[in-house]
């Protein structure tokens, strides 16, 4: 059911779903509850949709959306503002530049590609904090957070694939 300007509700919904997935990931990851007694830092759930749709459908996850999700992660986490926003954008730029290489990965290679991007996010955040605060923080928690994010990408990727195939694909029949 297209309206006068050529947009449809289904199309708009399909376009916003990837971003909403990122919002949901940021909210879930930043609920200040730790089931593990603060042993593990929460994973960067908001980065999963950024990476996934930056690879498979960059038109659904443009760079400003990555910036907005990073800023939301900053806002909800309570930490220094702009750290994750800049880190997400840096990783986005790398994935966008090397999209053909990343998109060609399959199986465990796809996970390794995500791992590389996640490590870049963590390293960028570490460097930005070191520059802005004038001191180095322990690298261990950054690596732990990256590790938990990478582990959760296994079920996360299956979920995102399902969402993309079953929901976004049918909603956007023009692609």
């Amino acid at each position, binding site marked *: 059911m297209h309206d006068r300007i050529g947009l449809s509700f289904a199309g708009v919904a399909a376009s916003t779903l990837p971003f909403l997935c990122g919002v949901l990931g940021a909210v879930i990851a930043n*609920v*200040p*509850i*730790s*089931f*593990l*007694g*603060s*042993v593990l*830092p*929460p994973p960067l759930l908001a980065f999963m949709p950024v990476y996934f749709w930056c*690879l*498979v*459908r*960059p*038109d659904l996850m*443009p*760079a*400003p959306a*990555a*910036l907005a999700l*990073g*800023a939301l992660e*900053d*806002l*909800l*986490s*309570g*930490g*220094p*503002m*702009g*750290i994750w*926003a*800049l880190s*997400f*954008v*840096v990783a986005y*730029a790398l994935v*966008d530049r090397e999209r053909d290489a*990343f*998109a*060609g*990965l*399959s*199986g465990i290679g*796809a996970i390794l*590609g995500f791992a590389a991007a996640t490590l870049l996010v963590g390293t960028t955040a*570490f460097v930005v*904090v070191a520059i802005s*605060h004038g*001191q180095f*923080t322990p690298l261990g*928690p*950054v690596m*732990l*957070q990256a590790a938990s994010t990478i582990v959760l990408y296994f079920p996360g*990727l299956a979920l995102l*694939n399902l969402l993309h195939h079953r929901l976004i694909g049918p909603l956007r029949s023009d*692609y």
Partner: protein
Amino acid sequence: MANGTWKIARGKGSPQLSIAIVAVLAVALVVLGRAQSSLFDRARAYFSDATAPMLEAVRGPVNAIGHSVRGLGEIFVVYQENRRLKEENARLRQWQNAALVLEQRLHRYQLLLNAVPDPSLSAVTAHVIGRANRPFLDTMILDAGKNQGIKPGEAVVDARGMIGRIYLVGQRTAWVILLTDLSSRIPVAIEPGHIQAILSGDNTAAPGLELSRQGIVLREGQQIVTSGDGGLLPAGLAIGTVIWDGSDFRAGLLADATSADDVRILDLRAPPEEPPTPVPGDLPVSAAGLPPLAPQPNTSLSAQTAKPPIAMPHGVPAGAKPVVPVTAPAAAPPDQTDAQDH
């Protein structure tokens, strides 16, 4: 799971230019967040206020799970831990007796000296409803906010010692910046010797100590307490002991923020120090032997400044009679025991 099966749809226009602009915006956000962090604090407070009921509801079960997970590693050292605690308990009983005797003696000395009483210290007890243990942030969220009179900067303590400071206050919730957080800076004193230092968090379990003077030799086991400099925190709050990590002296904290469920927020209501009332001889023109300047007749501001200064204590209505200021003796440093027991 293959990414290669996807048909890549590139956006229109120049994506590289778009990313460059977005990157500049992200850098600007970092700078803005560093310079004007309060811009985003209201949104954070609103978020924590909105989620407070949910956090309250799940606090019990989540804490139970968290304690169980932490307790898994302690099962294997229960026997040694029990023996160590019994020995420590015996030592502490001796110290308790000594402290009680000294407290009574101090009280008698204060009466003899007619000493100025310590600043009043009230406390609000709050539950910990959330924790955020992230790579660049160590914080907890409490279920008390502006409605309970909580203000930014107030000290948060548990039964063992200081945990951190309030840095963000919503209507029903407050965020605590822990002593271990990267942004935490607390003026402390190291006893004995009353060595002044800054306790600076760096997201490790043991914050660093920046001594105010060089050439001071610290020893392991020295006590670290708040110095009270700046007037925001009460002096004498227990923080921890000096430890040596192999390369530097650091602070081994007494309080355990990861296991604290109920904390107290201390409100230091020290009356602001009144500056002495200036006398005519203090004014530069009078001191130099010159006649005072004639008041400007047309401006209300200059007419006000031409009046002789009248000291009016805080909280006195404008129409009240002025009082003659008296020079109060310098307040004695607050007693640690009193500060924690009030």
